[in-house]
């Protein structure tokens, strides 16, 4: 992969040490396609309805190394109908996968918070699955000033 390393070297020189994102060198659309593939795998090809899922993220993340993220699904958590899984993807990272949360009825609420890494300005996509096999989705754009993929 001679071309890639040359590109990485160029990016390093231009960005000056640690600031540049010297990653896989893949175009963003490849990650977006992979994200779409992962969603299709998660839903088994079913279309996810937009809504019910809320994503909390800062509008502008100054440091992509640690960005607070909260995902909440506005759905009942009863024994026979609850939110079982939430898939979270970042479509501009070298690998789109962020995390998959699994819930049970005794979770009480389909809500989780964590801190994530973001390489660049991109969309965060969350897809929720209920025990009845329904899917809900939402996405949010987050602007990243300094990417969090090393360099």
């Amino acid at each position, binding site marked *: 992969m001679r071309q890639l390393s040359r590109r990485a070297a160029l990016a390093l020189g231009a960005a000056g040490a640690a600031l540049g994102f010297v990653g896989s060198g893949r175009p963003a659309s490849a990650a977006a396609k992979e994200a779409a593939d992962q969603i299709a795998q998660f839903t088994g090809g079913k279309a996810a309805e937009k809504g019910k899922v809320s994503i909390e993220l800062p509008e502008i993340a100054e440091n992509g*190394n640690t960005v607070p993220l909260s995902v909440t699904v506005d759905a009942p958590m009863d024994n026979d109908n609850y939110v079982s899984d939430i898939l979270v993807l970042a479509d501009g990272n070298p*690998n789109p996968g*962020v*995390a*998959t949360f699994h819930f049970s009825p*005794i*979770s009480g609420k389909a809500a989780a918070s964590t*801190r994530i*890494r973001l390489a660049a300005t991109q969309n965060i996509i969350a897809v929720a699955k209920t025990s009845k096999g329904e899917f809900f989705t939402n996405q949010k754009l987050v602007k990243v000033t300094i990417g969090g993929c*090393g360099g």
Partner: protein
Amino acid sequence: MAEKPRLKLPAEAKKGDVIEIKTLLPHVMESGQRKDKDGNAIPRKIINKFACEFNGKPVFSVNLDPAIAANPYMQSTQRSTRAAHSNSHGLTTTAQSRRLKKK
């Protein structure tokens, strides 16, 4: 890993309350994307699974990808099935780390 994982729970809970469970796991979460100063990729080393159980029953679990920041912070909730005090809560959390080969 000298630091101990931290777990924070409310001191007391009534039956039916939805309580917040906060955990902080000290871990580098090396993404596998970074390179050392000689240009060699630093191998990926992450926590890939986190689980929280109440008296053996699963409450919440997470599959983590490299996009989770270092020292993973996880916040989730649980509905109390009985009144409890923080030193007898019956809650177990486990984290699993597995070294994966880069694809």
